[in-house]
């Protein structure tokens, strides 16, 4: 085995009562690509943030190139040749590429000289690694793929020998991701060490030499990639065989409940995010929308649920139009039987500072059941909340507890209980199981299928292809604001992946 670039020995880290990392040991060989996989919340990012000096371990030892290292700040990490590309880019949006690259690594107190030096150095790096970026472009005007390239250049400019990438493909199309992987391989060929954090097994299999699996804050296994399988890794990640498919019968699709026609939506900057989309959802079926995050799915959901204004097009709910001018009242849509489980439960679907019972009426607080004139009917609200806690097995079962104190899965159940128990005709769900523990995933999937079996129309948006494939009766793939294809649930991952990458469209354009 090659010499170790990094050794982590007995790393522990707690946040309050949460033990994010327990007694972690890890050795990463020089000049390899090492993957670290695990579910959300397994402790991957925490571990890498410790290595980068962003957090400090409670105990344990770090060795870099065989020597014990004390990494207290990112500066220490940078000095040891460790660079990191964060999941959320650490760029100043209204600065130029060059300004971002020199930030914190200025060679001189005066900018002019720092920038001049950086410019020639950047040209060299761009040539060497094929990382083309216009050095004077303003970050916010660049597409995400290029912004990520700037992050990599930033690390290389600081002389990184070891490059950590945290979930780098979350915002990329498969094509952009492939490009990234080519860059990473090139870095490896130049002798750099790459650490790739991801929860996507496909990527691990495609590019890494070695892979370590984390689960609930512990390091459960390290394997040579070519000697392992996706199935083995998946099992290691979740700790038991994953239920990839939920049991469900044939769909009995009925009448059209939700009809979207030529819908176009722009975001706050005026960029077209949903581009002339049309589709139907019938009663008794689950329609899944697959796609890489940021291809207009969020805006689509927001427009249908009346939160965001649409530019043109129409949405019919049970044959009657929805007001898309932005004047739409989400409350009125609820009355008409449209329930919405939003993607972001922390800021949208719930008020974390509220008691559980207060959240159980959010959006339905206009319902006369919960009111006495202008006053809240506290008794009715509490009784209702207790009822839902029982039915959905929400834990801890205390309706007076602040919502922030529930786990992700239980928070999601609070939202689902609220929306499903209103007995809506149409249910739209964004990222049904994001940040939800495995046990709750199964529960949530079963609930959604039960809704379908009751003859409701269910629209699910998820970036997890597995989830879409196991839930949906029909799969629509969104790319760059358009629906680029429709497939049945039997469609293969590869087939859908190509659609998600917009391959057909790109070829047509070329």
């Amino acid at each position: 085995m090659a010499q170790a670039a990094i050794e982590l020995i007995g790393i522990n880290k707690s946040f309050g009562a949460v033990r994010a990392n327990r007694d972690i040991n890890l050795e990463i060989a020089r000049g390899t690509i090492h993957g670290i996989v695990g579910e959300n919340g397994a402790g991957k990012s925490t571990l890498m943030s410790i290595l980068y000096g962003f957090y400090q371990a409670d105990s344990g030892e770090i060795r870099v190139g065989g020597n014990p290292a004390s990494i207290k700040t990112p500066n220490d990490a940078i000095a040891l040749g460790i660079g990191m590309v964060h999941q959320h880019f650490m760029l100043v949006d209204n600065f130029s590429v060059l300004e971002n690259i020199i930030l914190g690594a200025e060679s001189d107190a005066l900018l002019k000289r720092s920038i001049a030096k950086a410019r020639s150095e950047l040209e060299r790096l761009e040539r060497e690694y094929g990382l083309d970026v216009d050095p004077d472009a303003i970050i916010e005007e660049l597409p995400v793929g290029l912004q990520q390239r700037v992050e990599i250049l930033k690390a290389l400019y600081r002389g990184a020998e070891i490059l950590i990438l945290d979930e780098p493909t979350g915002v990329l199309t498969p094509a952009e991701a492939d490009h990234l992987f080519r860059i990473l391989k090139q870095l490896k060929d130049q002798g750099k060490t790459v650490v790739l954090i991801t929860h996507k097994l496909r990527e691990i299999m495609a590019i890494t030499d070695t892979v370590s699996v984390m689960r609930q804050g512990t390091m459960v296994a390290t394997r040579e990639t070519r000697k392992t399988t996706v199935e083995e890794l998946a099992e290691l990640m979740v700790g038991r065989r994953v239920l990839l498919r939920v049991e469900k019968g044939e769909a009995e699709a009925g009448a059209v409940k939700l009809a979207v026609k030529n819908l176009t939506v722009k975001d706050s900057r005026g960029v077209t995010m949903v581009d002339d989309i049309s589709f139907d959802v019938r009663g008794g079926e689950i329609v899944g929308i697959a796609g890489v995050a940021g291809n207009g799915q969020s805006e689509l959901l927001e427009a249908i649920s009346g939160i965001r204004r649409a530019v043109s097009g129409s949405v019919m709910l049970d044959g009657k139009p929805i007001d898309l001018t932005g004047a739409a009242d989400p409350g009125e849509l609820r009355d008409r039987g449209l329930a919405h489980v939003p993607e972001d439960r922390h800021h949208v679907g719930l008020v974390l500072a509220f008691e559980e019972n207060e959240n159980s009426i959010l959006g339905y607080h206009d319902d006369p059941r919960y009111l006495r004139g202008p006053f809240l009917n506290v008794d009715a609200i509490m009784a209702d909340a207790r009822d839902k806690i029982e039915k959905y097995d929400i834990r801890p079962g205390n309706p007076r507890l602040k919502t922030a104190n529930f786990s992700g899965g239980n928070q999601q159940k609070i939202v689902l209980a609220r929306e499903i128990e209103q007995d809506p005709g149409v249910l739209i769900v964004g990222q049904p199981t994001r940040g939800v523990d495995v046990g709750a995933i199964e529960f949530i999937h079963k609930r959604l299928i039960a809704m379908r079996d009751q003859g409701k129309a269910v629209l699910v948006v998820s970036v997890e292809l597995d989830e879409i494939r196991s839930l949906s009766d029909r799969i629509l793939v969104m790319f760059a604001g358009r629906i680029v294809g429709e497939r049945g649930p039997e469609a293969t991952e590869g087939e859908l992946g190509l659609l998600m990458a917009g391959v057909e469209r790109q070829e047509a354009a070329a």
Partner: protein
Amino acid sequence: MSTPYAKLPAWADYGLIPLINLSVAFIVAGFVVLLVGENPFRAAVILVEGAFGKGTGIAFTLFYATTFIFTGLSVAVAAHCGLFNIGTEGQAYIAGLGIAIVCLSFDSVLPWWLTFPLAIVASAAVGALWALIPAYLQAKRGSHIVITTIMFNFIAASIMVYLLVGALKPAGSQAPQTRNFLAGAELPKLNWIIELFGAKIRSAPLNVTFLLALAMAFLVWLLIWRTKLGYEMRTYGHSPKAARYAGISETRIIITAMMISGALAGMMALNPVMGDQHNVAIDFVSGAGFVGIAVALMGRLHPVGIVLAAILFGMLYQGGAELAFEMPAISRDMIVIIQGLVILFAGALEHMFRPYIQALFASFSPRSVGMEAVKGKGA
């Protein structure tokens, strides 16, 4: 939006920590007293005796408290909706205009118990209207409400000066104020309540507005925690996105909350104008709007806390007057320092001592601070 702090038992959260913060503010104020060469302990004794020692003192304390209950509630209502209304001062000031119009028109024809309701409506309406513009600009144009309400304080002051040296000033008078109101716009005193307890009162301005203030405190509690509107305001205050999702109109809720806040601020003017001075004079608010910030923060935005904090500040104002009399080196401006220190320690440095308290609690019983894991955030 998970707070980085663990949970404490409610009594520590709402009692112990505010008490510690308050004590620190007073200890620092004590050092200022030392700095001017006086004995802080004697100063404290004079202060408390001045505020509660005699019937007159109590009446004055409650008179000042009345003013601060209104401004404190005003700041708190806006804060529950996530808005920092720093314009309470200007809203109260301009409300004096509404009161002036009512009182000058009706004081010779109506008895006080008819003028008073009219004046309540007028003061609340003018205060609400003055808050409406910044609220509208925040809701529709995204102008930062802190800045616009500050600007509106100055604009209100200019308007009031303009009117008080012009249209509102009786002909031939030099003083920039309205004429004195007649009996029909003078509010009855409440001093007899204190006298019931056997205390003697020479003359003190405590008046029926105090009861109005207490009623408003109850109504604000009802509004915030027991009505649909309050629920909507709190939803918006915690998360504007959740409010949008729940079908709560941003424009409507911002404007409503600010108008209620402005109305409460406006009612504050009733106390000094109709209860004490019986005229509208330049700068009659004299900073009470800003005291409202301190009162609201100290009262943790809860009406009960606000009434208690208002009484504390009333005590400081009244006791401070006595103090200035007994200790010439200390003027009433000492209160302004204390006010600032309270805002600093109970507001901006609210969480300074929390980690230590938590460590202390944890060392006694780890269970009591057993923070539930907030799972699913980050990896």
